[in-house]
C-alpha cells in the first residue's frame, strides 16, 4: 500500500508541479469560452455573408405581395426575356437567377428553375424555396374570396411553458431548459475531452517507462498491477484537481459577473457560449435570471453523479490506454492502429451525446446513458434534465462493473506487454494474454 501511494504521489506531483498545469487550469476555461465565442462569431459572420443576391423572372406574377424587407437573401425582379437575362445575371452581380413559370392557379406541384454559376448551398436553396412557396400561398389567398383577416385570426401564437416552474417569471421554464441544455453539452463535452486528454497521458506515461526501460527497475520492487493502478489513479487525481478548481471557480466568476453587470446586460451573449442554442431563444431574459436558473438546478444530484461518471469513464478508458501503451513497441508511430478501437466508442458516445441534447429521453439517449462504454459521456448530458434516478444508478453500477473488468483485463496485457521489447503486440496477442493464466 505504501508503494502504491508512492507511485500515485509521484505521478500526481510530477504533473501538478509543472508550470503548464497551472497555466492550463487557468487558461482552459478562457480558451474554451474564446473558442465557442469565436465559433459563434464566425458562424454569425458567415450567416450575414452567406445571404445571396437573387434575381427573379416572375412569369406567373405571384410576387406582387412580396415583402423584401425581411433579413436574408435579397430579391430583385426583372421583366427582361429569360434568354437575355440568363447570359447577364452574373455580370450584374447576382448569384442566382430564379425563373417562375406561368401559373394556372390550380397546380399543387410546381417546378421552379434556377440558374447559378457556382453550386449554391443547400440552406440557400431551401430558403428560396420557402420564400417562393410563401409567395404562392399569399397569391392564392389573394385570388380567393376568403377574407384575409379571417385567415390571420385563425393563427395563435403559442409559447410552451413548464408547469413545474416555481419562478414567477413566465418565461423561466424555457430558460431552465436552455440552461440545462448548455450545461449538459458542457459536461458531456468536458468528459469527452477528459477521457482523451488524460487517457493519452496515461498511455504516454506507460510508453515512456517501457521505452526507457525504467519499468524493469520498478517492477522488481512493485507488482505491475500496482504500478498501473498507481499511474491511473495519479493521473486521474490531476484531472480531478483541475475539475474541482473549475467547479469552484466557475460559479464564483459567474456570481462576480452578476454583481458587476447586475441585470443590465442582454443575456443573449451567454447563449453564444453554447453553439447548440439559438441566441434568439434567450432574448428577453436578463443575466440575474440566468444565474438564478443556473443555481436552481438539481446540483445535489448533478455534481456527485458527474464526478462519479468522470471517475468511471476515466478509469475505464485510461486502463485501456495503459494496456495499449504497454503493447506498443519501440516505434511510437505504430500506436495508431491500437488506439483506434478505443477511440471509436468514445466518438460514438460523443455523437449520441449531441443527440441527447435535443431529446434527452429518446430511446437512443437512454441506451447511450446506460451502456457502459457510452454512459460516461452521455449520462452527464442527461443529468440536468432530471433523468429517472434508477437509470442513473443502473448506469453507474454497470459502469463500475465494466471498469473492474477492464482494469483486470488491461492489467493482464500490461503485465506481459511492458516486458516485451521490439515489435508491437497485435490485438490477437493481447487477447491471448488476457486469457492466459
Amino acid at each position, binding site marked *: 500500500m505504501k*508503494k502504491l501511494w*508512492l*507511485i500515485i504521489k*509521484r505521478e500526481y506531483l*510530477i504533473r501538478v508541479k509543472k508550470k503548464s498545469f497551472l497555466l492550463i487550469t487557468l487558461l482552459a476555461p478562457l480558451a474554451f469560452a474564446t473558442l465557442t465565442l469565436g465559433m459563434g462569431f464566425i458562424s454569425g459572420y458567415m450567416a450575414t455573408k452567406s445571404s445571396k443576391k437573387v434575381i427573379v423572372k416572375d412569369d406567373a406574377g405571384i410576387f406582387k405581395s412580396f415583402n423584401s424587407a425581411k433579413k436574408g437573401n435579397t430579391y430583385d425582379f426583372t421583366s427582361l426575356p429569360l434568354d437575355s437575362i440568363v447570359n447577364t445575371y452574373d455580370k450584374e452581380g447576382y448569384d442566382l437567377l430564379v425563373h417562375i413559370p406561368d401559373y394556372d392557379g390550380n397546380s399543387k406541384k410546381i417546378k421552379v428553375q434556377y440558374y447559378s454559376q457556382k453550386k449554391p448551398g443547400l440552406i440557400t436553396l431551401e430558403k428560396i424555396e420557402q420564400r417562393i412557396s410563401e409567395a404562392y400561398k399569399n397569391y392564392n389567398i389573394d385570388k380567393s374570396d376568403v377574407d384575409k383577416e379571417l385567415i390571420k385570426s385563425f393563427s395563435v401564437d403559442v409559447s410552451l411553458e413548464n408547469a413545474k416552474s416555481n419562478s414567477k417569471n413566465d418565461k423561466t421554464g424555457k430558460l431552465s431548459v436552455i440552461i440545462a441544455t448548455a450545461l449538459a453539452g458542457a459536461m458531456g463535452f468536458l468528459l469527452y475531452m477528459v477521457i482523451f486528454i488524460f487517457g493519452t497521458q496515461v498511455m504516454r506515461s506507460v510508453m*515512456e*517507462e517501457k521505452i*526507457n*526501460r*525504467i*519499468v*524493469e*527497475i*520498478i*517492477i*522488481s*520492487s*512493485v507488482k505491475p498491477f500496482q504500478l498501473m493502478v498507481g499511474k491511473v489513479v495519479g493521473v486521474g487525481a490531476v484531472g480531478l484537481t483541475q475539475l474541482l478548481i473549475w467547479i469552484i471557480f466557475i460559479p464564483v466568476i459567474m456570481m462576480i459577473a452578476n454583481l458587476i453587470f447586475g441585470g443590465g446586460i442582454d443575456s443573449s451573449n451567454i447563449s453564444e457560449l453554447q453553439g447548440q442554442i439559438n441566441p434568439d431563444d434567450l432574448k428577453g431574459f436578463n443575466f440575474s435570471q440566468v444565474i438564478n436558473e443556473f443555481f436552481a438546478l438539481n446540483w445535489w444530484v448533478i455534481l456527485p453523479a458527474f464526478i462519479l461518471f468522470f471517475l468511471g469513464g476515466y478509469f475505464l478508458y485510461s486502463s485501456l490506454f495503459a494496456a495499449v501503451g504497454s503493447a506498443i513497441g519501440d516505434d511510437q508511430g505504430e500506436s495508431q492502429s491500437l488506439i483506434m478501437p478505443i477511440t471509436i466508442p468514445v466518438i460514438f458516445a460523443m455523437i449520441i451525446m449531441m443527440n441527447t441534447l435535443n431529446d434527452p429521453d429518446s430511446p437512443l439517449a437512454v441506451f447511450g446513458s446506460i451502456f457502459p462504454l457510452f454512459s460516461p459521456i452521455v449520462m452527464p448530458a442527461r443529468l440536468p434534465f432530471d433523468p429517472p434516478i434508477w437509470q442513473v444508478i443502473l448506469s453507474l453500477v454497470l459502469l463500475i462493473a465494466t471498469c473492474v473488468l477492464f482494469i483486470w483485463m488491461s492489467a493482464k496485457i500490461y503485465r506481459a506487454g511492458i*516486458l516485451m*521489447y521490439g515489435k508491437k503486440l497485435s490485438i490477437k496477442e493481447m487477447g491471448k494474454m488476457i486469457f492466459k493464466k
Partner: protein
Amino acid sequence: MPVLKIDNVVKRFHNKTAVNGASFEVNKGKIFGLLGPNGAGKTTLIRIITSILKADEGVVYLNGEKLNEFHPTQIGYMPEERGLYKKMKVGEQLLYLAQLRGMSYKDAKKAIVEWMTKFEMQDWWNKKIEELSKGMQQKVQFIVTVVHSPKLIILDEPFTGLDPVNTELIRKEIMKLSDNGTTIIFSTHRMEQVEEICEDIVLINAGKVILDGKVAKIKEDFKENKYKVEFAGEINNDLLSGLEVEDRDGSSFVFKLNEGQTSNDLLKILLDNGVSVKSFNEILPSLNDIFIKLVTD
C-alpha cells in the same frame, strides 16, 4: 549456505523455453559471473530472481528461503538497458526509487547524500537526468542499484557505455561492496572482465547450465598442456622433431605436451640440449576460448 540457490528452474514463453531446468548456487560475498551468448536465457533468469517473472517450474531460494514478496528489497538490480525518468531531477528520482525499495524517506536521503558525495556529484541534486552526460547518468543508475544496501546485487553488463575512468570507479565500488560481504551477480558476455573480477561463474546456453564452477578450476579443467618458452639464441631443428610445436614467433615457441609428458620433461629436454631458457609459462585457455568452444560445440 548459499545466498542464492537456483533449483531446476524452467520458464516457457508461448512455444519457446527460455530457461530449461537451470540449477546453480551463488555463495555469499562472491562476485559471480553469469555468462552466456545472446538469447541464452540470462535476462529471463535474472527477471525470475528479481521477481519480475515467475518460474513455471523449480524454486529460487534467497538466503535459504523460497523467493517471497519481501525479497526484492534485498536485491539491487541494474538492467542492461538502463532506465531513468529523463525529466525527473536526480535527487527526487533517487528518493523515489529508494523508497520503492522499502527505505524510509530519512534513510533514503541519508544514503543518497553519502553515495552522491562518494561519486562527487553533490551538486547534481536538482539537475534533470536529461541534462546529464551518459557517464553521469550511469553513476546515478549505479546509485539506484545499491542505495538500499542490498544483500544481492545483479549487474547486467555494468560497464557498457562507460569511459575508462568511470569503469574503474564503478569497478572499485563493486570490489568494495564485495569485500563488505555483498554478493554480486555479474552478467556479461565480455570475458576479459569476468576473468578479472569473478571468482565463480556459470555458463548458460539455450536455457541450460553448461558449465559451473570456480574460474581457476575451469581453466585448469580446460587446459591443453601448452607451454610458452622464450629463449636466447637458436634452437636446433633436430630437437624440434621430437616435440609438438603449436606456434613459433622468433625466439618464443609454444609447445604442446605429448601424452604422459610433464612440464618438467619438456624443460629437461630443452636444458639438456643447451637451450638458454629466458621464461617458461603454462598457457591456460582464456574464458573466451572456453566459452566459444562450448557454445559452438
